């Protein structure tokens, strides 16, 4: 039975060709074969959310995805949210609000918050809580993370309004 194959996968806008086995998890391949380490392994059973990646733009838990499923697909991790050496808006707000303690879960919360703001630019606090319910932070910095997300949404919306007003003039 042939059980290895090569897959073409785009990780953070870079095309990669990787040799994988059919029974390998996307989580392990991203970390060990592609060397992207912001994707953390926590529970391996879909409960902690730390292995979240954007799979064709949508968040999925990579411990419950086969690596072979990602053939020809586009994967984004926290490293891909902003160019090298820079921070994306949501990353900046996480830093400003000190929305982390040990930092282990931070990349997954940042990614999921980034996605949430892209589909719902003006979420309420309860919508944020609901959306992040599949992620666990053992340090318990949920309060600061929610503040960071609300502040990021507020500033992005203000910036949008300013741009719209300038264009109208």
């Amino acid at each position, binding site marked *: *039975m*042939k*059980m290895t194959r090569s897959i073409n996968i785009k990780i953070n806008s870079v095309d990669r060709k990787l040799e994988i*086995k*059919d*029974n*390998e*998890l996307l*989580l*392990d391949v991203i*970390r*060990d074969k592609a060397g992207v380490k912001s994707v953390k*392994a926590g529970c*391996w*059973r*879909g409960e902690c*959310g730390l292995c*979240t990646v954007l*799979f064709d733009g*949508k*968040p*999925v*838990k990579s411990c*419950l*995805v*086969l690596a*072979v*499923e990602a053939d020809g697909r586009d994967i984004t991790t926290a490293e891909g949210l902003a160019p090298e050496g820079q921070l994306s808006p949501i990353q900046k707000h996480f830093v400003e609000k000190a929305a982390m303690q040990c930092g282990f879960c931070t990349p997954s919360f940042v990614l*999921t918050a980034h996605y949430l703001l892209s589909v719902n630019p003006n979420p309420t606090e309860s919508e944020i809580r*609901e*959306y992040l*319910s*599949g*992620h666990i932070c053992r340090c318990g910095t949920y309060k600061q993370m929610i503040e960071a997300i609300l502040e990021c949404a507020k500033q992005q919306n203000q910036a949008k309004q300013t741009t719209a007003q300038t264009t109208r003039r």
Partner: protein
Amino acid sequence: MSFGSAYLTLPDFQYLKPKTLQETLQLLDEHKDEAKIMAGGIGLLAFMKERLVDPRWVIDIKAIDELHTLHDDGDKGLTIGATTTMNQLLAFEPLKDKYKALRDCISLLSDPVLRNRSTLMGDVCEALPFVDGPTPLLVFDAEIEAASVKGKRRIPMAEFIKGIAETALEANELAVAIHLKSPPEHSQSLFLKHTSSSEFSIVNLAALCANPTKPENRTVRFAYGAIAPTPARVHEVEDLFKRKNPVPQLIDEAVGVVRKSTEPMTDVLAKAEYRSHMLEVLSIKAFRRLLGS
């Protein structure tokens, strides 16, 4: 990374991703019990990690266009394809009002990130007692459409789950779609559940009511799950609510009927007595909300 632990790795298998339904059915006919069907993979991969399931072949059905269907045909009902995700269902307009019990059920399942991959069909085919999907499907008289190389058939939801992790599907059959019947006009439905310290239900129920104030036209439907190995519809309460007695009295009687119709089980999540009590509490709440008493 996986430290060689069985719980963190998957057993060996070969992955297949057929592009057509015909091809899938042939593969399934050839490999039968040695093959497992995968859509979202949430349940399957978790069970494989625990070595509860060890298939030689994993057949991914996400490339098959016809399984992605999701359409509302008005009075003719609603069709949900096997690969339709929970998030697609939550965003689907007809579910918001007409099939509210199903929507409420999905909105309480797992979490928004997992719902990007998990499917209602996967939930139903897992056939585990604490899975919520089948209960609302019972009040919408759902049928599971199964296909094999020999043809198609429809299995009523009430006959689909045979026991714990056991369905009416043959080894060469693929569950391709869920068909829900349109509920009575102006009906309202709801879904309630009580969980242990996890998301897993120890009792869940779905109920539907049309014309609550006119006994002769009143329609009530009621189903429960998680309390026993298989979910069930309680038809006895449906006739009871056609009577002209005051509603609070009917509710009292109905709750008694519901309690007597069950054989609650004891497992790691809860004891039978507790399940029975919580079913009573949730039933009262459900009937009061729907019948406005």
